[in-house]
């Protein structure tokens, strides 16, 4: 409930003062998140970049966070909105724990909560400017889902946000299969992240991979991918068209 709803500024409901209370555009943003199901559970990957428009401003942003014992969330879009979402999720898990009834929220429940939260904000014309990936394992059941800033949601064997939908999903459609081992899964994700690194200008070469299995949740230490830039065409880029630019 928004206290500012009852202030004089909100009497003129669609006036310019009220607009300062709503999200109009994102400021610090994270780029793609990619997720896949594999034999033992779920793997998520995201780089650690926080862009400020075209500036690669922050390079240590953790965009993968664990939620309770069974799930991991990956976020792209506005970082401050993701921090807000994490506050809500941490509260949700806290209250779930306080019931102390032997029950705990699994990935399906968390995904549903996120979907309702995103849709509700969209209904109020004040969206949380994020695309989220939610993956987890509970009671042997693997779950991988995604929600967008307007509430569009679905689950699948592989998901991605933003540019990942254009560059990573086709690779996953071709190479994903039911029984990927952990090593194969990581290799496949790294292939996706490498393509994104080459072709998405908001990508940075510092990423984390998260693994969720029945045993629990682990998020790797940050590391960089090997890239190759030694193409002869790059050595003398202007050789064919010498000039001022």
């Amino acid at each position, binding site marked *: 409930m928004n206290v500012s709803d009852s202030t004089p500024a909100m009497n003129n409901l669609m006036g*310019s003062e009220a607009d300062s209370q709503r999200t109009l555009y994102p400021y610090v943003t994270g780029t793609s998140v990619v997720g896949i199901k594999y034999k033992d559970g779920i793997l998520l990957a995201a780089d650690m970049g926080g862009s400020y428009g075209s500036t690669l401003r922050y390079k240590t942003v953790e965009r993968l966070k664990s939620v309770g014992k069974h799930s991991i969330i990956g976020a792209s879009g506005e970082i401050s909105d993701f921090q807000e979402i994490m506050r809500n999720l941490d509260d949700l898990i806290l209250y779930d724990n306080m019931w102390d009834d032997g029950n705990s929220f699994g990935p399906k429940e968390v995904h549903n909560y996120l979907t309702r939260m995103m849709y509700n904000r969209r209904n109020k014309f004040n969206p949380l400017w994020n695309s989220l990936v939610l993956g987890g394992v509970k009671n042997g059941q693997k779950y991988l889902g995604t929600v967008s800033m307007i509430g569009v949601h679905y689950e699948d064997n592989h998901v991605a946000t933003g540019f990942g939908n254009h560059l990573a999903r086709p690779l996953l459609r071709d190479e994903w299969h039911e029984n990927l081992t952990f090593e194969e899964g990581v290799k496949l994700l790294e292939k996706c992240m490498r393509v994104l690194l080459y072709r998405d200008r908001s990508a940075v070469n510092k990423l984390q991979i998260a693994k969720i299995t029945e045993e629990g949740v682990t998020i790797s230490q940050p590391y960089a991918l090997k890239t190759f830039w030694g193409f002869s065409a790059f050595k003398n880029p202007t050789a064919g068209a010498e000039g001022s630019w």
Partner: protein
Amino acid sequence: MTKQHANWSPYDNNGGTVVAIAGADYCVIASDTRMSTGYSILTRDYSKIIQLADKSVMASSGFQADVRALQKVLEARHLIYQHQHNKQMSCPAMAQLLSNTLYFKRFFPYYAFNVLGGLDSEGKGCVFTYDAVGSYERVGYSSQGSGSTLITPYLDNQLKSPSPLLLPAKDAVTPLSESEAIDLVKTCFVSATERDIYTGDKLEIVILNASGIRRDYMELRKD
């Protein structure tokens, strides 16, 4: 200072086509399982069909978040109805509820294009077709969604529906058998898949009759 305009839209079209055909003692409700946005495919395996009551099945295409919210509202309302009346809602009752629910958001609509199928209180097949704000009509068959413009003329031709202007009103329910209707639906979707980019991947068919409910699936072109 002029009013700032949002640079985002609360709506999106996630595509897809839905069809329903009513028979003498059955109803066939079908949809593709592709979910898209813009020129991208989000998933090839998303069901647009939901069973709201024993004898009511709804299929909806359009903006998926609104469709899901609409489904949840109707599911909840049906549960309350069962608590209050100790019985399942009939299909015509559900039809009215859906219309009222849609009109309730007349000034910020559910971007959902619905087709409700089931069996009426006499056990005859019934199909109700809707627009996004709740205007509805009982018909013998209907198609909604991105491929509807391709499918509806074909159904008009194949089912030779009597004119709704006739007096006395002639029943629009098809004399086709259940298996003939299912075949017809499959043909509709294969055709729509050829020309509509938002339709394809897989076809889900739900058949409702006196013995209960069953599902059938068929692969469609994935391009």
